[in-house]
């Protein structure tokens, strides 16, 4: 579905990504794990073309999207839940969800919003509140709901567990599995390798801008190197 081939990204003189290649198949949950500064977020931003690549090629559904502007990429069905949630703070929950559907002009936006409210009942209770008054977990739900409003085929999730209580993390990961089960392919970037590997089908391990390990999520979770470096053993 999505194919990233030999992509490199520089921030000035710093090489953030070097020859990164990976692919995502339809219907999968793929996890990208790695330490701080490994380049996980950069990969997502490069797919969305918020950060431009200096080399390499990104193909999505057999179409070269490497140079497409961000708004065109959203229209093609790739939606990102940015790191740190980035909800529109002063806008209400409802308005945030409306912004998620910005690229759509069909008349099913209303019924999609109902579905979001069913999936996240807390958002329904708070739909008129400004997003900044929501708790961290609720904001994460809002950010995910907002991304789903564009009806993505591929959802990019950046650190959904960041700053959340363990119970909420489990709930969020449960929801990610539900979203996947209803047909959305997911690329999940996580520092919480344990959680990420428990729900992913396949995973890639990044280290200082390079893919160092890849494979089945279960196998990676039992790989002694991974256990030592990322699972705290």
């Amino acid at each position: 579905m999505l194919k990233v081939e030999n992509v490199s990204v520089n921030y000035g003189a710093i090489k953030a990504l070097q020859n990164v290649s990976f692919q995502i198949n339809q219907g999968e949950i793929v996890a990208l794990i790695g330490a701080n500064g490994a380049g996980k977020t950069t990969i997502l931003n490069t797919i969305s073309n918020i950060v431009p690549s200096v080399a390499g090629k990104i193909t999505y559904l057999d179409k070269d999207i490497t140079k497409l502007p961000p708004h065109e990429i959203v229209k093609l069905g790739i939606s990102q839940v940015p790191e740190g949630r980035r909800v529109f703070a002063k806008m209400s929950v409802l308005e945030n969800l409306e912004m998620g559907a910005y690229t759509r002009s069909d008349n099913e936006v209303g019924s999609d919003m109902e579905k979001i409210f069913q999936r996240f009942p807390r958002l329904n209770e708070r739909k008129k509140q400004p997003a900044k008054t929501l708790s961290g977990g609720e904001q994460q739900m809002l950010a995910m709901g907002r991304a789903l409003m564009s009806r993505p085929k591929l959802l990019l999730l950046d650190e959904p567990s960041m700053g959340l209580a363990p119970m909420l993390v489990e709930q969020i990961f449960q929801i990610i599995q539900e979203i996947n089960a209803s047909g959305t392919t997911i690329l999940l970037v996580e520092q919480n390798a344990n959680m990420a590997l428990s729900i992913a089908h396949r995973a890639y391990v990044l280290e200082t801008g390079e893919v160092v390990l890849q494979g089945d999520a279960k196998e990676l979770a039992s790989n002694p190197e991974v256990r030592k470096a990322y699972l705290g053993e």
Partner: protein
Amino acid sequence: MADFLNSLVGSVDPYMLQILVNVGIAIVLALGLNVITGLTGQLSLGHAAFMSIGAFTSAMVTIKTGLPFFANLAVTGVVTAIVAAAIGFPILRLTGDYLAICTLGFAEIVKVFFLNFEPTNKALGLTVPQAKTSIPMPIYVWVVAILAIILVTFVQNSRFGRALKAIREDEIAADAMGINTARYKIQAFALGSFMAGIGGGLYAHFLSYINPSDFGFLKSVDILAMVVLGGLGSVPGAVIGSSVLASAPEFLRFMSQYRMLVYGALLVFLMVFRPNGLLGGVNVTELLLRAIGRKPAGK
């Protein structure tokens, strides 16, 4: 009709009339900046530059052509908007303080340009002939001001306006929502400058004399103060802010030499006690509905 309007204007005390016109022009200028800074969140310290481009363009159009005044203003607005779009294209990549400094620099360049531009009499300034209209200027100013209020209210509640607000709240998230942020920022900048240009055209024809030095940094800050004082992003706020600040120096005149001191103190106190502006975060429609005893319609 013209006779009636003339006698209407004639019946108002000339001093009051002057203040009213100043307020009307200030509303047009402040609403323009409100689109750029209030709605879209792009801090501009060069609004007076676009006002001066408008003022000189409009004056030259009146001098060189026989266009009726409304067509003159339309041309003026479009010329100013085109300049703004051309300038906005490179500088709107910047954000926050960097953008502010850039607009400040641009405003200085515009000022120096007009100070040395032969056709507009360089530093001597330009005497502007009477506007080609039978409607008296004060009425004209207020009609334009009301049109500006309607326009910005409409923009604010449109799809375009929602995108601008999203850019103000979080540009990266707006990008991720599929909003073409670069294009919308330039459009907002052009729209705000369009209004600044028209405000400049009105200013030129009301005062009938313009000088490049009238449109310096202080003028830009004055307009920004109106928008911030009223409440960033609020149309009624911009109207109240410009009304208060455009008329306060006159109403405080009885204090003679303490006038500007009190004016400054007024600004400080308002910002301390209403940091979001007079009407910042206030839903005026809702208040009005409550006042007449009706519940605001729920979403």
